[in-house]
């Protein structure tokens, strides 16, 4: 099953694959309309390996047609069979589609010149191998994966990727462009792998949300338990965003994908 959403206000989508429980929450920047939301997300059940692919992408404010590019990146990843850096070498069809959508469109001089620069987005894709209980993550830019384990007991952030600290977020990250600019992405691609246990939680978040969650974690006030137990509806996400805005959450588009992993072997034993 694959879903890509843009323009949903504090939206939620739940798809309980056999191996994972996935919920997606999103919300546009305060002051912007739903149509101006420029993040994207996608997830899809996969056969080889058996598991799931999840992606989030964050279109850059200072680029044009960025929402379209973010959607194309997220969709391309979940439909791809490539989980490593080689995925980025196969972006030609997505780039072509981006150009086609703009072709022939009458644009004023400034819009035309901005489109010439291309659109830019941060990207994070995670492939979960349900049989091996492993994840492989791929990132360019500042969308972040947070892997939290021992859910319900100690709740510990096992890994945060590709950024580890809230101070590492900047307003000018290196992003993926919709036009091949001749510069090699190679040095900017980051890949990480990890093991999953039954009940582990993976959070995929766009930059402002990720930075805030990491900041809370650094301050000894993590929201992991709340995210696992209480975050369930668009209303609860909206309440968290409203609280965050009064407590250091930067105004931006927000996307948060929560994946809870279920180890099928544990379930089989229990049954």
């Amino acid at each position, binding site marked *: 099953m694959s879903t890509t959403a843009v323009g949903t206000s504090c939206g939620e989508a739940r798809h309980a694959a056999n191996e994972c429980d996935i919920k997606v929450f999103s919300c546009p920047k305060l002051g912007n309309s739903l149509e101006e939301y420029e993040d994207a997300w996608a997830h899809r059940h996969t056969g080889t390996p058996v598991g799931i692919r999840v992606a989030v992408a964050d279109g850059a*404010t*200072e680029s044009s047609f960025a929402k379209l590019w973010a959607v194309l990146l997220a969709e391309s990843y979940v439909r791809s069979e490539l989980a490593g850096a080689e995925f980025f070498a196969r972006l030609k069809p997505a780039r072509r589609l981006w150009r086609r959508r703009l072709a022939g469109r009458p644009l*004023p001089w*400034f819009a035309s010149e901005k489109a010439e620069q291309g659109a830019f987005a941060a990207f994070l894709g995670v492939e979960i191998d349900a049989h091996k209980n492993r994840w492989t993550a791929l990132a360019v830019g500042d969308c972040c994966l947070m892997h939290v384990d021992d859910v319900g007991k100690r709740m510990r952030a096992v890994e945060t990727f590709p950024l580890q600290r809230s101070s590492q977020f900047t307003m*000018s*990250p*290196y992003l993926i*462009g919709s036009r091949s600019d*001749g510069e090699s992405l190679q040095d900017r691609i980051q890949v990480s792998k990890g093991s999953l246990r039954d009940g582990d939680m993976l959070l995929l978040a766009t930059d402002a949300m990720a930075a805030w969650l990491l900041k809370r974690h650094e301050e000894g006030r993590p929201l992991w338990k709340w995210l696992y137990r209480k975050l369930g509806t668009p209303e609860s996400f909206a309440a968290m965003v409203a609280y965050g805005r009064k407590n250091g959450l930067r105004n931006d588009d927000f996307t948060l994908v929560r994946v809870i992993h279920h180890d099928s072997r544990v379930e089989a034993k229990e049954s």
Partner: protein
Amino acid sequence: MAYQAEISRKNPGCFLFLVDQSESMEDPFGGGEAGRRKAEELATILNKLIHNLSIRCAKSDSIYDYFHVGVLGYSEESCKPALGGELSGRSLVPISELANKPLRIEERTKKSDDGAGGVMDQTVKFPVWFDPYSKGGTPMCAALKEATKITQAWCQEHPNGFPPIVINITDGEATDGDLVAEARKLAAVSGEDGSVLLFNIHLSSTAGPSIELPGNGSKLPDQHAKQLFEASSTLTPFMVARATELGMPAEENSRGFIFNAQPLHVIHFLDIGTRPANVHLR
């Protein structure tokens, strides 16, 4: 803490340019190619700044009013709005209106990558808002007074907004009073988020290396440059960080002063959202 206000369409930023149109701007520019006049350099800078600001605010097929922009020209005995055509007489104009109403759009040829390892000629649109003009004295103090009035009104209308940035482009000699005293009055205009920031771009006939965002005036070549440095605001910490990121030699106490260089990065000193590091600024 000051200078933290978010810039948005609801709470836009303000750039007010003060441009020297005195007779001395006819003199050769010391920082560029031989035979180029300071008035020509000023027009190039202003057109590029407005051009780049328009591109920065362009969003898909429209343009977002993140900024309002004004241009005041000072020459002879007076200071007045210097935008022409349909924008004549207006002190501040939303960037969307400015982008849509240049004096003319010229077509120019530039070399670009042909995608196959070579170069090709590409025709590009080149909007022009401002032509070189120079006559009479340099009533810079009158310009600073007018800027004080305009920014006071702006701060009243946008009390929680990011304070206006005034950018004065001149060859440095005020003929109508104490430049530093007037600059201080202007920089005292304030809203909830801090006071007006005044930057000075000095286009001198003196040849020599360009100087950008100095922390002190010791290396400046003449008294006019030192006076303009004195009249310039200290950069905010965000601006120092952004300038450093853009390759400018900024430091903690850097002032918004540039000597014989094009200040094209200045419009990036205000944040409007994620800027891809891999877009090369012109």
